[in-house]
């Protein structure tokens, strides 16, 4: 099990590093740094109250969504393309376990890396003298909520990469479904209980779908 976690971490390290670099650029720009001002849509300056306008949330959402998609496809479709499922799945471990470990590792990486810009930007905003407006940690709530919904997108990408289909349109159906679920969830989750429990339930269902597809599909 430990070796599968190690393998997955090693394989997604590049994507995680790229996401981290994008987050770093975003946070540095929000802190007033002009290093990344040449990047389109990159916010600049410290004039907005942290986490209250779209300066952080819009780029954060796009970066995290891209990160989740890349992670999901890398962990599923890549193995199918390279034929390494034939090597991995012959290990004497239940197939469900192999895929659950993959999903747990991917989700953990997504959440850990995704939390870095929130913590970094909030920590910067919390230090007096950095920003001409009051700050409370509760202001980060919407960012956390956004991040908590991203595993749904990640699992949709994973399922799309794993599930065999005749053409790209039908292959991407799970991803499109998950995108729709993410939108619906953002409309529903008005309380912390819903913000936590709805993604958790949806992720559980999607993980079950992944295990089912992994069990029934052919690795030809």
């Amino acid at each position, binding site marked *: 099990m430990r070796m599968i976690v190690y*393998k997955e971490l090693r394989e997604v390290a590049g994507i995680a590093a790229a996401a981290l670099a994008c987050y770093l650029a975003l946070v540095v720009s929000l802190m007033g740094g002009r290093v990344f001002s040449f990047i389109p849509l990159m916010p600049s300056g410290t004039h907005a109250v942290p986490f209250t306008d779209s300066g952080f949330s819009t780029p954060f959402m796009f970066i995290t969504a891209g990160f989740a998609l890349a992670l999901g496809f890398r962990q599923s479709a890549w193995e199918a393309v390279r034929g*390494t*499922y*034939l090597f991995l799945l*012959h290990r004497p471990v239940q197939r469900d376990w192999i895929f659950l470990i993959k999903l747990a590792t991917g989700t953990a990486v997504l959440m850990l890396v995704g939390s870095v810009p929130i913590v970094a930007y909030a920590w910067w905003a919390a230090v007096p003298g950095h920003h001409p407006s009051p700050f409370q940690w509760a202001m980060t709530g919407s960012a956390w909520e956004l991040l908590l919904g991203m595993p749904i997108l990640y699992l949709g990408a994973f399922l799309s990469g794993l599930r065999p289909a005749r053409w790209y349109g039908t292959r991407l159906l799970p991803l499109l479904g998950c995108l729709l679920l993410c939108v619906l969830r953002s409309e529903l989750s008005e309380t912390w209980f819903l913000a936590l429990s709805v993604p958790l339930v949806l992720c559980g269902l999607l993980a079950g779908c992944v295990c089912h597809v992994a069990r029934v599909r052919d690795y030809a």
Partner: protein
Amino acid sequence: MDDAIRTRRLTKWYGKRKVVDDLDLQVPCGTVYGLLGRNGAGKSTTVKMLAGMVHPDAGRAELLGEDVATLSPATRARIAYLAEGHPLYTWMTIGQAVAFTIAFYPNADPDLVAQLLDHFNLSRKRKIGRLSKGQRAQVSLALALAPDPELLILDDPTLGLDTNVRRDFLESMIQIIQRRGRTILFSSHVLGDVERVADRVGVMIDGVLRVDCPAEHFKHAVRKVIVEFGREPPELAPVEGLLSEQRIGTRRELVFVGFDASQREAVEALSPKSIEIVEMNLEDAFIEYTRRPQRALARFGGNPVHGGTVDADDRVQGAA
């Protein structure tokens, strides 16, 4: 448990095409079984079904007495599977691949892997992505042998390897065979390889296992008969077991499955000047046997070939 591999009416469809058709295969423990067939004959799909990577549409397969569909990790640990093309993680070094693999097998023998890597002259520090095809095949074999498996299932293991590397690989396989009671099933295109190591062969044609017998029996069952007439060769009436017929000047070259008394009678009825029976090697026998369209081959399973070269347990499907 007498059989390491047993399949019963194993069938697989890809769309409207039946790629494996009612396959009944038994590989006794300790046997080296070569599965032959042309491209698209269904060998690879069969091997993948045995490894549990492809689900059959009908029928069942058992490995070491356990159904493949519900193979427990403990039984899987006793089976090695080398997939076609030797897929491995290219970012790993050989040392990392060894560490990754043996972590799954508590009884794995790191010394055996070290010996094999030494034998192949492979350094643990080398990246798998930078190895040649042959070296990758060698690493795959070393990894497969690490847990000292009882059964090895190899899908065209020498595909794409040059002659020297293939020879090396086969010699390693022979050494493995000589270790206690291992069963090996391997599919191959290279008839010479099969002839060197297999003690039993199966020939698949369009998804059907047409031949299942000892390699020697197969070679002896397919015979070329050169019939010299010294004049315009007459037409030969349809004869059971006739695979192909070629006219060269004043003679006819006939290829038969078997060549028994009834077939000899049919040939002698044409009043030839001479009849010469030529023994074929496995490759020639295979080519002659498989090049005829499948529909033209009549099935007769379990019956001895005319001429008595095949036991009741063996099976060579003759031609109509």
